[in-house]
């Protein structure tokens, strides 16, 4: 059904798209990093909470499509942490920061 001969072309084109959208990926990770820092300082605003939830959701949906399966798993965990209402408790700040740091490395290291 699929065209195996098309795979190298697809991989190459995916690489180009990754470069094109890398700034967006970095921005989403930066939103998570900021939220984690704000949470640790007990200063997470509602806007930051909502932005972090949305950023985690988007990263979860897209990273695996670019072959970054671990990134999707981590982003899903961040999404779950950020889905708590009225917001994630400060107890999860360290874990959110850890996830954000790992996502940062994953996004930066994709070839």
């Amino acid at each position, binding site marked *: *059904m*699929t065209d195996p001969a098309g795979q190298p072309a697809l991989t190459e084109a995916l690489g180009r798209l990754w470069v094109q959208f890398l700034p967006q990926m970095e921005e989403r990770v930066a939103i998570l990093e900021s939220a984690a820092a704000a949470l640790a300082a007990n200063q997470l605003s509602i806007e930051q909470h909502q932005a972090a939830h949305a950023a985690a959701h988007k990263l979860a949906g897209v990273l695996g499509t670019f072959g970054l399966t671990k990134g999707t798993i981590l982003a899903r965990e961040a999404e779950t942490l950020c889905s708590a209402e009225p917001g994630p408790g400060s107890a999860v700040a360290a874990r959110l920061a850890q996830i954000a740091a790992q996502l940062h490395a994953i996004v930066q290291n994709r070839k």
Partner: protein
Amino acid sequence: MSRRILIIDDEADIREVVALSLETVADWEVVTASSGAQGLASAIEHQPDAILLDVMMPGMDGPTTFRELRNNPATARIPVLLLTAKVQSTDQKRFADLGVEAVLFKPFDPLTLSEQIAAALGWGECPEPNPGNP
């Protein structure tokens, strides 16, 4: 047989990867829209063979867009597949209850996305790219 697919997703990266996947692997024609409202207009204009619809979008979300598509005689019969990053079983049940043809999940494998769509819609084997096809 060539297919025309409409992708409705507010995220440009997802639209681009889906389009790349379907055009490169299955040689399908792809039309894109970045919002539910734009998607409705595009569905009426282009009459796609199927619609891939994101769930979480600002403004008109996926379920609302789906209902609008079903309520419009010009688009009511076009198969709709939800494309979502929501994987919890409660979400899946809610999506299935909407009446869409299928629910596909992000992340997806760009190499096999067209197979998933074809299987979900009973299209059988995807055609090999054929330059002679109109």
